């Protein structure tokens, strides 16, 4: 009998030693942040906690854009998978870095967030942004040798509108071919940024090649991009190789789309810790937009370079606008809550210090963000004030529900908020639901009192239109609110002319005062690469201004 127990203990001891063995060894790799920075390239963790405006993007801008085509092959890890390469797609995963290699677009955002012509030679508007004349290059050809004319572009836009996968194409009123290489695009509105989004969302594809494909480019693509996709395993990997017969001169290309590397392989790894492991094992040279908890373990690691930049969207809390919610019409309560939330605590608790506070509902990355806002106070943490405001409010012990998606960051953020609310004696529960359920109830303000979201459209106008326009949804705005005063102010910013600093400021002030939404925290973006890869200049660009590996310079 004693032997039985002994056997059990033996086994237990074995497992325990395996566990501690792994854990202990693992510890060596990730050292605590905030130590001395080894090199200038590494960002130190503690500094990030300061509300410093300047981002931690490393200084590599001095290196001149290169035109040298190297024979380098790079392996990149990225966390969002796609199941198909088809050009007609929903917005899901559309900011993934591999799209830069997969398809050419009419225009592309460069590293300074300015729209540069790419397949398009130029575009201009005749009437305040409702009608555009677009001219494309006359030398474009795809990897199968098909010449691209304006007809192909017109076909693509019409097809996209018909398939209704991306809402932006609903704003196309009509598109007509006006010459071999020119077309005219009529829009239904002239909101700031609409044309830019369309330019980024039109993939240049030959209609003939597309129709010849058996699965609508689902598994193999013929495109005009400088790269051809040589291998694609759905949800696992995509490989690209530089074309020899690319139609454009390298010097004419914006820096961020130059095909400097011969081969670029993407490994699509959704499990965050696995991205880190792939970096460690050398499976990948670089991981783009890696999760904070994984990225932070490479800080102060001499074998890796950590590139930190400000988050693109940030996290917000929106208060319900439905009359059933105590927060809907109670400014004092909302303000109290905003005062009661410590941004520094969120930075530490949510992102281990790798985040910045916010100064508006939208992140500074959004086009239209006014840098001056960073000098204003934005509900700086003040528990006394919060409690005083709460006492003045109509809050009467109701339980407030915080809705969040069940993604790791969102649900942690919800728990942190709950903690702050409880600290100021507000009863509070978290409703953390899967993404689909979240999507379906987030517009219905009766289902929650506060909803956590990460909203990051191209421009402030876009953000406001999807969040605060009471005419946008059947229930009102995105939280079932009907605030027509705010709508007035928002509508003013919706034209090209109206998107002025003054009008924008008015909305900003209104949102801040009414506190119907509050920017919580903006986690920094981690991109990590191994020193061994020899990267000498990181070039960023495209929709989310991620590092574009094909355009980076390596030694």
């Amino acid at each position: 009998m004693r032997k039985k127990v002994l056997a059990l203990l033996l086994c237990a001891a074995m497992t325990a030693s395996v566990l501690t063995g792994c854990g202990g060894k693992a510890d060596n790799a990730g050292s605590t942040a905030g130590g001395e920075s080894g090199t200038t390239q590494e960002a130190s963790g503690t500094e990030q906690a300061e509300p410093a405006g300047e981002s931690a993007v490393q200084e590599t801008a001095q290196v001149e854009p290169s035109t040298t085509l190297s024979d380098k092959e790079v392996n990149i890890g990225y966390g969002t998978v796609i199941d198909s390469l088809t050009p007609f797609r929903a917005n899901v995963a559309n900011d993934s870095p591999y799209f830069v290699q997969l398809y050419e677009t009419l225009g592309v955002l460069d590293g300074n967030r300015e729209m540069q012509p790419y397949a398009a030679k130029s575009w201009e508007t005749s009437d305040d942004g409702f009608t555009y004349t677009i001219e494309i290059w006359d030398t474009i050809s795809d990897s199968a040798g098909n010449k691209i004319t304006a007809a192909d572009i017109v076909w693509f836009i019409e097809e996209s509108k018909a398939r209704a996968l991306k809402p932006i194409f609903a704003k196309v009123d009509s598109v007509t071919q006006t010459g071999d290489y020119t077309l005219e695009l009529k829009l239904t509105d002239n909101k700031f940024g609409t044309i830019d989004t369309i330019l980024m969302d039109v993939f240049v594809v030959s209609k003939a090649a597309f129709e010849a494909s058996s699965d609508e480019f689902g598994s193999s693509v013929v495109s005009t991009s400088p790269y051809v996709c040589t291998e694609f395993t759905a949800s696992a990997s995509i490989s690209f190789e530089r074309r020899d017969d690319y139609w454009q001169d390298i010097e004419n290309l914006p820096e961020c789309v130059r095909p400097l590397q011969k081969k670029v392989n993407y490994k699509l790894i959704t499990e965050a810790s696995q991205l880190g492991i792939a970096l460690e094992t050398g499976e990948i040279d670089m991981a783009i937009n890696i999760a904070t908890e994984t990225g932070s373990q490479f800080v102060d690691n001499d074998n890796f370079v950590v590139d930190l930049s400000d988050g693109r969207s940030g996290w917000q809390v929106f208060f319900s606008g439905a009359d059933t919610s105590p927060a809907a019409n109670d400014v004092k309560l909302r303000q109290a809550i905003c005062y009661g939330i410590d941004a520094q605590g969120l930075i530490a608790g949510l992102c281990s210090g790798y985040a910045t506070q916010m100064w508006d509902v939208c992140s500074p990355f959004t086009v239209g963000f006014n840098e001056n806002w960073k000098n204003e106070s934005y509900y700086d943490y003040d528990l006394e004030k919060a409690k005083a405001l709460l006492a003045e409010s109509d809050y009467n012990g109701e339980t407030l529900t915080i809705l969040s998606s069940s993604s790791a960051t969102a649900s942690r953020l919800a728990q942190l908020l709950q903690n702050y609310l409880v600290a100021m004696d507000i009863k509070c529960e978290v409703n953390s639901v899967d993404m689909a359920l979240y999507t379906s109830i987030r517009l219905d303000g009766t289902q929650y009192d506060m909803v956590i979201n990460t909203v990051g459209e191209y421009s402030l106008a876009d953000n406001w239109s999807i969040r605060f326009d009471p005419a946008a949804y059947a229930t009102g705005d995105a939280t079932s609110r009907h605030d027509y005063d705010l709508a007035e102010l928002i509508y003013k910013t919706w034209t090209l002319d109206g998107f002025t600093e003054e009008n924008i400021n008015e909305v900003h002030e209104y949102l801040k005062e009414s506190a119907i939404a509050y920017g919580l925290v903006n986690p920094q973006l981690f991109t990590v690469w191994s020193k061994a890869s020899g990267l000498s200049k990181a070039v960023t660009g495209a929709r989310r201004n991620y590092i574009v590996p094909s355009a980076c310079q390596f030694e």
Partner: protein
Amino acid sequence: MRNTMINNLTKSNKKHKKQSELQRVIKQLKKNKIAMLGLYILIVEIILAALAPYISRYGYAEMDLTACFATPSFKHFFGCDDMGRDIFSRVLYGGRYSISIGIIAVLIAVVVGICIGAVAGYFGGQVDNIFMRILDVVQAIPGMLLMIVISAVLGPGFMNTIIALSVSTIPGMARMLRAQMMKERDSEYIEAAKSINCSQFSIIFQHLLPNCISPLIVQATMGVAQTITLAAGLSFIGLGVQPPLPEWGAMLSAARSYIRQSPHLVIFPGLAIAVTVLALNLLGDGLRDALDPKLKN
């Protein structure tokens, strides 16, 4: 009059038999030191979970943002998690949720399984056919998938998680009970019960069921263990209980990205699950041996 007398007689007889059988099982079980170890572990865990508020110094949702990732110390026996919550307290409170999820889900499955299995197994024929074809269909869908779809339909939450877990456990229970019922159905003591005009209800639930229950007990014990790990799986996908409830699976799943830099976040809830599941399995094995005299030497 005579009938009731006989009934009473058989009842008292059976009661006597049942008790001595129970005593035999307990005696057998007591001899099996490993199974008893499993039982003791479970009892200790349940006591710890029940007394969690008196044992731990912190609430399970209490955050101390200055103590994020604190390593185990006297202040925090198991250290703190990513949001500065005391892991020791969370593991203690977590026992309440994890263990009760396992037990309640299996109890529901057992009750429903008994009803289906008993009815199908006893009546046989068309009734059995219909039930079994339905179970065929349900079992042809992989259990994990079924569980996920049900969770998605019901939404997250403690009770919904339990329902999702129990639904996918029902077919196995029902099938096993049915097989057992069919085996016992033709036995002589059932003939005897029929001959003295016992009602069908009484035959099924008073005579047949007690004789079919022992494999069910074993299966249920193991089922609790399996349910606890399945609940961890649900949390991994983002379904399961609501935060900040410290269900062990949810803790483990949320902390898995920190396994390299702060392994203690993962080790303690992981160990809690492992020890519980191990204990349940040891107990289950012991019960099986005790209930099945065939397996003795």
